[in-house]
């Protein structure tokens, strides 16, 4: 354990640094591909790199990365262009175009790779490092290359931040104000390919997609601002890279790439469930809160109508079935709603099973009924919707109208004297 913290083994430093640098590259460009809903193109690029590497090897007969990387870059880039060509010039949709390019390029790559392996060419072994990654065997040279690529990517994103931002959010607008969309898309996909070519050496073909997608998708749940999102994505992927690399160092039989991906995925799932505003738990509570609010307001409103039309105005007591005659509510939710309303002081229980509105309850019921009628009036007077069509809409809007909106509606409609609408 102690040598882990001292990091005196240079190999570990290379592995951790290498994984860190390529994670930074991948998550930076991944943010843009994610926002452009082209995440899976990154998957296609990762697969399409293989035939390029094999061709470069066949042509030059060496494993020198200076030859292999341009080859990888070329077919990777070609694959993104082909996905565009297929969708633009035929009725094939994006998903099928991606699958076609991905599987055919990869299939061809495997075919070429096996042809090379069976041909007895010298020094071919190790080409398949591009297939599954070789994170545990990163060298100082790899780290330098990864660092250079990360630097280049960040510099490019920095320089063209505004352009890429517009391209991701409003392509048509970007075009209309004179941006060269084609050139921008080409350079953005070029940057993606660059990130994939380096990343793939660490985690392999299949898992590359995760490094591009997961940090961005996770960051999206924490913020609505692009620069914050990029920052969060970089932080998340860096932590995952360090944790993943450490796990495989502490338990040597464990593979690095898959552990980085596992950490990324767990972070993503945790975020999807617990994120402060967009997470499922918060959303669930919000939904529940809204449902309860609607239930309570609907009960109060019904009590209000009943009180207004009661045959004996001095004793406006009603039981559950009186309510249910006016509104379709299950016994269960009606019971719960009435219990809460009593505890909040809006309703009072009078003898067995009979309830009446308190003063506050009467006010609240009146308010909701008032909002309902206000909205109905607005729809009929201003939007010229037939009076028998406005009720359902008002039923939903009455619960969300704010006092400010209420004031505006009243001004627009000239402070109408509103009679409570009574259902007969």
């Amino acid at each position, binding site marked *: 354990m102690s040598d882990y913290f001292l990091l005196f083994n240079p190999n570990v430093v290379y592995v951790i640094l290498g994984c860190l640098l390529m994670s930074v590259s991948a998550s930076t460009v991944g943010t843009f591909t994610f926002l452009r809903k082209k995440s899976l193109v990154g998957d296609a690029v990762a697969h399409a790199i293989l035939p390029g590497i094999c061709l470069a090897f066949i042509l030059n007969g060496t494993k020198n990365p200076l030859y292999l990387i341009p080859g990888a870059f070329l077919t990777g880039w070609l694959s993104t262009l082909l996905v565009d060509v297929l969708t633009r010039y035929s009725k*094939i949709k994006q*998903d099928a175009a991606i*699958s076609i390019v991905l*599987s055919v390029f990869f299939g061809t790559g495997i075919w070429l790779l096996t042809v090379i392996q069976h041909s007895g060419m010298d020094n071919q072994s190790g080409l*398949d490092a591009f297939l599954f990654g070789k994170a545990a065997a990163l060298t100082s040279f790899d780290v330098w290359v990864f660092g250079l690529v990360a630097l280049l990517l960040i510099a490019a994103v920095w320089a063209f931040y505004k352009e890429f931002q517009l391209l991701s959010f409003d392509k048509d607008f970007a075009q209309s104000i004179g941006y060269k969309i084609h050139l921008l898309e080409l350079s953005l996909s070029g940057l993606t390919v660059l990130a994939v070519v380096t990343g793939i050496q660490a985690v392999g073909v*299949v898992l590359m*997609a995760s490094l591009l997608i997961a940090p961005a998708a996770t960051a999206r749940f924490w913020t609505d601002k692009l620069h914050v999102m990029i920052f969060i994505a970089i932080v998340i992927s860096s932590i995952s890279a360090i944790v993943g690399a450490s796990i495989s160092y502490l338990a040597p039989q*464990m593979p690095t790439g898959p552990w980085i991906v596992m950490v990324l995925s767990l972070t993503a799932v945790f975020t*999807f469930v617990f994120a402060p505003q967009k997470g499922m738990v918060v959303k669930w509570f919000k939904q529940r809160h809204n449902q309860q609010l609607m239930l309570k307001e609907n009960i109060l409103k019904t009590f209000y109508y009943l009180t207004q039309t009661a045959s004996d105005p001095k004793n406006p007591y009603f039981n559950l079935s009186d309510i249910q005659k006016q509104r379709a509510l299950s016994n269960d939710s009606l019971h719960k709603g009435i219990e809460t309303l009593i505890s909040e002081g809006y309703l009072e229980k009078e003898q067995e099973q009979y309830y009446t509105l308190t003063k506050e309850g009467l006010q609240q019921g009146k308010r909701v009924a008032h909002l309902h009628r206000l909205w109905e009036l607005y729809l009929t007077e201003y939007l010229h919707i037939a009076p028998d069509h406005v009720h359902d809409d008002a039923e939903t809007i009455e619960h969300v109208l704010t006092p400010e909106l209420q004031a505006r509606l009243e001004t627009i409609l000239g402070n109408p004297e509103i009679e409570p609408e009574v259902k007969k």
Partner: protein
Amino acid sequence: MSSFWIILTGILVVASCSILGCFLVLRKMTMVGDAISHAVLPGIVLAYLVSGERNSIFLITGAALIGLLTTFLIEFLHKKAKVQEDASIGITFTSFFALGVILISYFAENVDLDQDCVLYGEIAYVTLDPMLIGNIEYGPKAVWLLAFVFLVVLAVIIPGYRSLSLTTFDPNYAQAIGISVTLWHYVLMSLVSLTTVASFESVGAILVVAFLTVPAATAYLLTEKLKNMILLSILFGVLASISGYYLADWSNGSIAGAMATAAGMIFGIVFIGKRIQRKWIIAAKN
């Protein structure tokens, strides 16, 4: 004789895949097929650990369940957690695949499996594992298994044809006349995952993806009718597996890889042919 069995294996895989592929292409769900084919890895490893052999029905059912779980998770992330669809696909299948690789490393001594055999299985080895009854060989086990899967696909698709096509083309109408869209979605996905798992060892995930998409997409370029599309798709698939086999034989390379290459070439020819035909039609009109 072995070339006969290898080509037959390819044809059986391609037959199941092209039929299912047509529905995937029309439903814009080919990437879900791709995701399933990668995500079944942990299922295969776990089932292999339990059953201790390949090509067992147990292994296939176990792994196919993981495939279904994948579709379910993708839907869940997309619909309930509101994650963008492409991202939910990407996150789900990479997580499963990573889990599979970790399991393989952890149980390295007990599992005679490689991640590369899942990616690009070796179809040439199918003849090494024959079906023995008594002392008589009845062809490779893989062929029997794939033939069984093909029959299952047919047995579901033929009676369910109307429901499947209705839920594909007009889900709202299908729902209105009482056909469950969700049910047929999961039926289709179970078949995809069954086919993927059954083929993984002989042809590998990547050829399954190629066969699921490329022949169906080629047929999609040429016809508007679903029945014709399915038939054409099978035709292109068979053509790809036969020509792929001879390409591999001539070049001494991976058969699965060559078959995917051949499927891609056929697609390319049809795609370019369609473009030229369009130009002619436009030129003739002027």
